[in-house]
């Protein structure tokens, strides 16, 4: 390896002195350039979208921080009346909500969206319009949630919205609705980003970048992305159920009608605990990326790190009940979750030892980013240790709902996320702006944050051990809590000042920072081979990358890339192109042509925002209308795909190049649909979990003596559905074997069968003997039937759309891949139909009431 501290610095030429790079840049900019003015709303490029996510996330962070200051001002002294109890409830609820949902996850997703294509040698994320859609959902959802503060009707039941406090009886105002609708809207954004990142990492790495040569940050994001895909749907389901309960009176969480409030806790923490690792893993990925650069050597134990990241990812789904140790579950079950909670510390420990070994074996440079990483190591290890303490059931009981837990949570989340994030922002700032941050201001900001944070939260462990509960808006003097609270409050304000200094440094450096040299830190990964700031297309040409350290092994690579010496530098086709590669070996399989700027994501998110607001003010007819508009916009968006001239202006490729992805059976949409169905399946399984949970636990749960609908009728409806799915698969097979050119008529036929099935299913649902407002059993049953109706309707409509696209020439023997995407939807619909029939109809008939 060449010396990483100097590599790249002396070798990258001033590109303005070269004619060829400028010409290529101009040609690529015609295809990839971002429009200005109001048309900037149509930008889909990952760099812009990633930056928007991060800037918006930091704005929400400032709001969340100000709310925290109000909390600390109120608790600084006993008996303070700065806030009354209602205002305090709203403020601590919104502090947690904003920090968790509107700052931590989106800002890390934004960073990943910005970096992943550059790290893996791609020109953009694989579904750019989905990125833009996700951003607008996030922005609109976040604004809806935060607007509740201005209206004095902010959520007030805690950031985890426990029922029955958040239910209609104890929370009759719109406060909980703001949370349920707004956060669900934001979660659409999170899931879409998860799908986008997973597929991009698996399918768009540059030529030769096999899985074992992927930058570690990509591994962390891959695992975190999959965790989002599986972890967020249970909360989406819970939010939908609670909103339906509040709006329509379906008693999912009402114990008197067969529901159970503890179901909410299960669904929330099924999401909530993995969420901690969804936040931590990308941040740990930053640490694993920066440490080798500043230690001047490859990371120690790459394989072990990958193994521990995957292990952390799946074990973290087996811990959720440790948030519920006091609700009264059997000791044996508590022991399972206690052991699993302690186990998860082991893979995290492996990562920490790998980092320490890298530091030990390297020659660390204490730069500004490394300062934040040092702070992370100290704080996160302390937070991890108190986490192991909390995994012990008796100790957990003692400190449950005290400030000890608040202190632990902040050590883990601020130490495990904010410190690495700041390190990452300082590290990649020169890439985004072309300028260096201020060392002096940056170091001042770090020390103020580090000292302020520990002054606030280290002593809060003590406050908790003294018995001070969480979420009380004031306290009496003489309980021993006065001094520790005062210290925490002073520390909190020092922390706020430090954060302001660091953020000011980040902002001011755009104006005052000195120009950054190329690859200023001597990094090894591909993102530093792009222009600073990056152009919208990232790379003029896409290099081979059969190594973990491309820039250390070939410092000339940025120049070669800029001069167009590598692949896909042709521009006369007018397409946005990147490689589609094998998920394991990185071998190139096809050329993925990406869509250009589009208004559809903005319009779709806007229509959904209208749906959200209409539901909030309970204007249900208007909400239904807006839902239809949103669906129409989404379908119109899907029209501009594949062989559509706006998606692929020219079908020709260079001699020797692989085909365009829409001419294959393995385009990115296939993977996108697969990962989306994984999320959908997680939501469905959460619903089934709810059904079986209520059947097992809820004291008033009643299974009716007679099934609410005819098993025979269900059988007939299911057979129709299965026939349609088999028919669709037959069309796919015929096209795959190039046996059939005339597929429009079969597709219309399948759509007709789907329509008949749908009509029968709707009729069955309407005539079922269900009173969903009077029993939790009927409420869950109704929701499951509606779920099936939605899936069947979409399968039917998508098939009709495919028939239209065949007629328009966008789908056919030469452009087959959309058919295999829709086929997945059909088979998923068939699967959930029969599973529902078994679980909700056959199972209760065979076992009877619990």
């Amino acid at each position: 390896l060449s010396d990483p501290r100097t590599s790249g610095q002396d070798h990258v030429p001033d590109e303005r002195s070269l004619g060829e790079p400028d010409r290529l840049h101009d040609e690529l900019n015609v295809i990839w350039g971002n429009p200005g003015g109001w048309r900037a709303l149509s930008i889909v490029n990952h760099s812009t979208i990633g930056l928007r996510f991060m800037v918006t996330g930091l704005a929400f962070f400032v709001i969340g921080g100000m709310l925290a200051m109000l909390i600390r001002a109120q608790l600084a002294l006993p008996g303070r009346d700065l806030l009354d109890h209602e205002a305090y409830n709203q403020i601590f609820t919104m502090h947690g909500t904003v920090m968790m949902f509107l700052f931590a996850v989106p800002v890390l997703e934004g960073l990943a969206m910005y970096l992943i294509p550059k790290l893996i040698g791609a020109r953009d994320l694989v579904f750019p319009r989905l990125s833009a859609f996700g951003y607008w959902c996030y922005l609109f959802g976040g604004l809806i949630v935060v607007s509740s503060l201005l209206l004095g009707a902010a959520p007030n039941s805690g950031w985890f919205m426990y029922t029955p406090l958040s239910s209609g009886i104890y929370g009759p105002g719109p406060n909980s609705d703001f949370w349920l609708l707004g956060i669900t809207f934001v979660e659409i954004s999170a899931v879409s980003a998860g799908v986008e990142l997973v597929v991009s990492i698996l399918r768009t790495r540059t030529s030769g970048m096999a899985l074992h040569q992927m930058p570690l940050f990509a591994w962390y994001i891959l695992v975190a992305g999959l965790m989002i895909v599986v972890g967020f749907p249970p909360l989406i389901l819970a939010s939908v159920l609670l909103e339906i309960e509040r709006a329509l009176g379906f008693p999912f969480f009402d114990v008197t009608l067969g529901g159970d409030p503890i179901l909410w806790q299960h669904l929330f923490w099924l999401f909530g605990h993995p969420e901690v690792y969804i936040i931590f893993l990308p941040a740990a990925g930053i640490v694993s990326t920066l440490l080798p650069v500043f230690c001047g050597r490859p990371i120690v134990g790459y394989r072990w790190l990958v193994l521990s990241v995957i292990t952390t990812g799946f074990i973290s789904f087996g811990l959720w009940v440790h948030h519920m140790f006091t609700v009264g579950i059997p000791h044996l079950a508590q022991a399972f979750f206690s052991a699993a909670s302690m186990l998860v510390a082991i893979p995290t420990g492996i990562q920490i030892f790998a980092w320490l070994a890298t530091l030990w074996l390297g020659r660390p440079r204490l730069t500004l980013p490394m300062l934040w990483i040092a702070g992370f190591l100290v704080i996160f290890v302390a937070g991890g240790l108190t986490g192991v303490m909390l995994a012990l059931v008796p100790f957990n009981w003692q400190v449950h709902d005290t400030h000890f837990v608040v202190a632990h949570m902040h050590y883990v989340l601020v130490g495990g996320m904010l410190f690495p994030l700041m390190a990452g922002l300082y590290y990649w700032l020169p890439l985004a702006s072309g300028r260096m941050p201020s060392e002096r201001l940056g170091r001042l900001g770090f020390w103020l944050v580090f000292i302020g944070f520990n002054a606030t939260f280290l002593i809060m462990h003590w406050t908790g051990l003294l018995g001070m509960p969480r979420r009380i808006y004031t306290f009496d003097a003489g309980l021993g809590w006065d001094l520790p609270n005062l210290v925490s409050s002073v520390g909190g304000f020092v922390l706020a000042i430090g954060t302001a200094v660091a953020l000011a440094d980040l902002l001011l450096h755009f104006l005052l920072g000195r120009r950054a040299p190329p690859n200023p830190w001597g990094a090894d990964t591909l993102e530093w081979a792009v222009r600073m700031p990056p152009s919208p297309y990232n790379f003029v040409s896409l290099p081979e990358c059969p190594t973990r350290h491309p820039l250390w092994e070939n410092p000339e690579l940025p120049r070669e890339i800029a001069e167009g010496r590598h692949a896909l530098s042709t521009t006369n086709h007018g397409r946005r192109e990147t490689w589609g590669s094998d998920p394991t070996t990185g071998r190139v399989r096809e050329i993925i042509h990406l869509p250009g700027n589009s208004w559809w994501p903005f319009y779709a998110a806007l229509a959904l925002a209208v749906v959200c607001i209409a539901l909030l003010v309970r204007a249900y007819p208007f909400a239904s209308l807006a839902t239809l508009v949103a669906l129409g916009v989404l379908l119109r968006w899907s029209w501009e795909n594949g062989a559509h001239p706006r998606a692929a202006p020219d079908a020709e490729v260079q001699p020797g190049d692989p085909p365009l992805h829409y001419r294959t059976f393995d385009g990115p949409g296939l993977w996108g649909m697969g990962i989306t169905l994984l999320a959908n399946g997680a939501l469905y399984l959460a619903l089934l979990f709810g059904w079986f949970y209520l059947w097992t636990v809820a004291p008033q749960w009643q299974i009716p003596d007679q099934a609410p609908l005819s098993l025979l009728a269900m059988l007939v409806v299911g057979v129709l559905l299965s026939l349609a799915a088999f028919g669709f698969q037959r069309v796919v097979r015929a096209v795959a074997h190039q046996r059939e050119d005339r597929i429009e008529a079969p597709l219309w036929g399948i759509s007709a069968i789907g329509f008949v099935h749908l009509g029968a299913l709707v009729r069955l649902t309407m005539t079922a003997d269900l009173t969903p407002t009077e029993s939790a059993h009927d409420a869950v049953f109704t929701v499951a039937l509606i779920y099936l109706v939605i899936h069947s309707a979409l399968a039917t409509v998508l098939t009709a759309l495919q028939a239209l696209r065949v007629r328009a020439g966008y789908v056919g023997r030469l452009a087959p891949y959309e058919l295999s995407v829709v086929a997945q939807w059909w088979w998923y619909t068939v699967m959930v139909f029969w599973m529902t029939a078994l679980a909700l109809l056959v199972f209760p008939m065979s076992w009877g009431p619990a």
Partner: protein
Amino acid sequence: MSPRTSGLTPIGAAIFIWSTWFVFLYGGLSVGCAVAPPSTDAGASNWLNALLAVITVVVFFGFVAAAIPPWRRATRARAPGSASAPESDTRDPWRFLDFVAAGIHGVCAASMPVIALSVLRLPPCV
């Protein structure tokens, strides 16, 4: 989907099976206690704990057996005369995936007795 993606399949399958076992452990306990709760006087010696223990042992040995082939493939490079493991690892994605697959199966197996050990000591429904 290409058959070459099969390198990732064992990892996904292991995680799926582990998750199913975990759901069975907690869900089976809850359902067992709801349907036919064993007597508390029997302590940990009852049909429910026995069932959970047997299932755990079966799945445990399944994971151990499944971990051996990829582990052998992953460590084959260490034979005399071949390239050292780390160097060959950087050239061969399949060997890398074998290591990860063996590791995930091993982690799954190792975690099971730790999590389920309490079935030997604690009554199920108290």
